[in-house]
């Protein structure tokens, strides 16, 4: 019954050393160099052909997770497996061989395109680097991919500043797909786009996934879009996953207080909608000083003394994991 996982992340931890004067002060005070625990023990799996949504607010570590998978950051510890191959231990050269299977679409369509390269050169670069196709073959493939993402081949000679925001994002998507990857990481692919463009890009992404059997790791803070695209969702807070479930289940029955608060905060386009008045107090703390026990403790209206104990992510029902003492007590 279990679909083989395409990408398995196990106990991923990513730490950044803190720098500067504050770092020295803390080092003296605590007796050890301070680190920012951006990702603090995250485990999840993306099955072949599915979309896993990774949601959370600023500082939760979702972007760091994504960047670690493609080695833009070095994981401090943990395992990342892609189609059975362990990525973390690979040498530089061996990892480069994995790149065609693992691509990424970035958030800002403008900033992620080299302003000096034409669309064609940008899109064709991956196959230039990783395959030995001739120039003519590359051209053919590039044209085909451009057509697929809805950009006519006549746009191939244009430069990014001659394209609209939506077109630029399509170029990014074309570049990510040209090597026929297995897993595509989408880092907020529609956040920088206009409302009316989002629908098209989202539908395009869905269409491409279905047609090519791709898997997506979809990172976003836009819960409405995640609900549409993802089949499963993991909610992150301060470096850990606090809840993970099938999409319909998560949105219908959010169990973790953070998930509840997050859903309650999203404004709904319905003036008569009654909002769940579940609110967290205070603001997201800095990832430098992570409290012991449940990380939400200081802000959670339901907090009890037991919340000072460390809380693991436990399976409550098939496919639904939650990291909350109180929920488990009820169950």
């Amino acid at each position: 019954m279990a679909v083989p996982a395409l990408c398995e992340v196990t106990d991923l931890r990513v730490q950044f050393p803190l720098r500067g004067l504050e770092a020295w002060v803390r080092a003296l005070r605590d007796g050890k160099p301070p680190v920012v625990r951006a990702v603090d023990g995250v485990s999840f799996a993306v099955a072949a052909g599915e979309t896993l949504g990774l949601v959370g607010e600023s500082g939760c570590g979702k972007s760091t997770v994504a960047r670690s998978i493609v080695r833009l950051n070095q994981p401090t510890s943990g395992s990342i497996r892609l189609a059975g191959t362990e990525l973390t231990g690979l040498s530089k050269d061996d990892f480069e061989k994995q790149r065609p299977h693992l691509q990424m679409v970035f958030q800002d369509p403008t900033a992620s395109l080299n302003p000096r390269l034409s669309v064609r050169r940008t899109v064709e670069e991956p196959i230039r680097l990783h395959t030995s196709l001739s120039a003519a073959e590359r051209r053919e493939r590039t044209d085909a991919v451009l057509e697929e993402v809805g950009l006519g081949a006549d746009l191939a000679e244009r430069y990014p500043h001659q394209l609209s925001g939506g077109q630029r994002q399509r170029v990014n998507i074309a570049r990510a797909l040209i090597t026929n990857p297995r897993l595509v990481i989408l880092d907020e692919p529609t956040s920088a786009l206009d409302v009316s463009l989002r629908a098209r890009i989202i539908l395009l992404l869905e269409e491409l996934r279905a047609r090519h059997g791709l898997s997506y790791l979809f990172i976003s803070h836009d819960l409405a879009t995640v609900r549409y695209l993802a089949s499963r969702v993991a909610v992150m807070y301060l470096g850990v996953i606090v809840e993970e479930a099938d999409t319909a289940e998560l949105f219908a029955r959010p169990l973790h207080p953070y998930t509840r608060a997050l859903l309650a905060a999203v404004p709904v386009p319905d003036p008569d909608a009654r909002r769940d008045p579940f609110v967290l107090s205070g603001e997201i703390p800095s990832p430098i000083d992570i409290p012991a026990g449940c990380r939400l403790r200081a802000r959670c209206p339901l907090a009890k003394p037991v919340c000072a104990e460390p809380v693991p992510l436990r399976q409550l029902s098939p496919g639904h994991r939650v990291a909350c003492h109180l929920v488990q007590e009820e169950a």
Partner: protein
Amino acid sequence: MSAPRTAPGTASGTAVLSVQDLAVRFNTDQGEVDAVDDATFDVREGEVLGLVGESGSGKSVTATALLQLIRPPGRIAHGRILFGGRDLCTLGEETLAHIRGAEIAMVFQTPRTALNPLITVGEQVARLYALHAGLSKAESRKRAIAMLRTVGIPEPERRARQYPHQFSGGMCQRVMIAMALASRPKLLIADEPTTGLDVSTAARILDLLRELGQQTGASIVLITHDLGVVAATCHRVAVMHAGQIVEIAPVRALFARPAHPYARALVRSIPRVDRAVNMEPIPGVVPSLINAPPGCRYAGRCPWVEDRCRRDKPMLKEIAPDHRVACFAVEDGRAGPV
């Protein structure tokens, strides 16, 4: 966000601001851009009016025009902006300087960049009291701290001595709101005040705006592209497309019975958190505003378009109490049941 609230006043509520036939144009390398085309709308006392549209719809330009801050190569080609019995377009810079900040205030998109990084937060707020209310330094400082408390900044005495970079995005926005409301303006313009803020922070900023509006009696023009924000915060909504106002309605009416083809398409194109939907993208693209074609600018994308739509510009007409739409198809009843 609390339970649905009732709109202050009725259709005949007193207008704090009245915009009539406002046209803003920009002279660029490639020709003249018709950024705002004969915009007409009112802002009533105590209400929150939403100005909704995509980028390029002209909503931010309209806001800038209200404050008479359009600079070359842009200009207000024609129109009147009536406020406090005067047409802002005819006033001199000195008079306007008194009005800006004191009677009409603005909150911007990226709060941290709108604050001066070299001056403490408390000082920035206090200066406004000194400037507009002519208060002494000590008195301004006291009022500033009180204002910071009102906008929900914890430990205001301590935080007032800090600099903007020590504040989070949400806190900076609260400071901006404090500065905007320092002089008890009659009108507050908030230009995408929650862009770049986390979901939960954004929700609280919107709550704050609405509450303060109610408390001080100020009217708010809320510019946004997010229909969810509109539904949760606004009393009435004006929908803009390519520089034209296409529909103005009370918020419930807009969501229950959107009339203009663009408004309908917009509502159908967004994903939702509260239920599973089929998103339908809006057909076509926003037309170029350079040497813009006459007539309705939605013509190129509209399923009910006729020749007339490309020639003549539809005016805003009332189709229901306080619900106005600029569309020939809706007028003629061609556009199907609303």
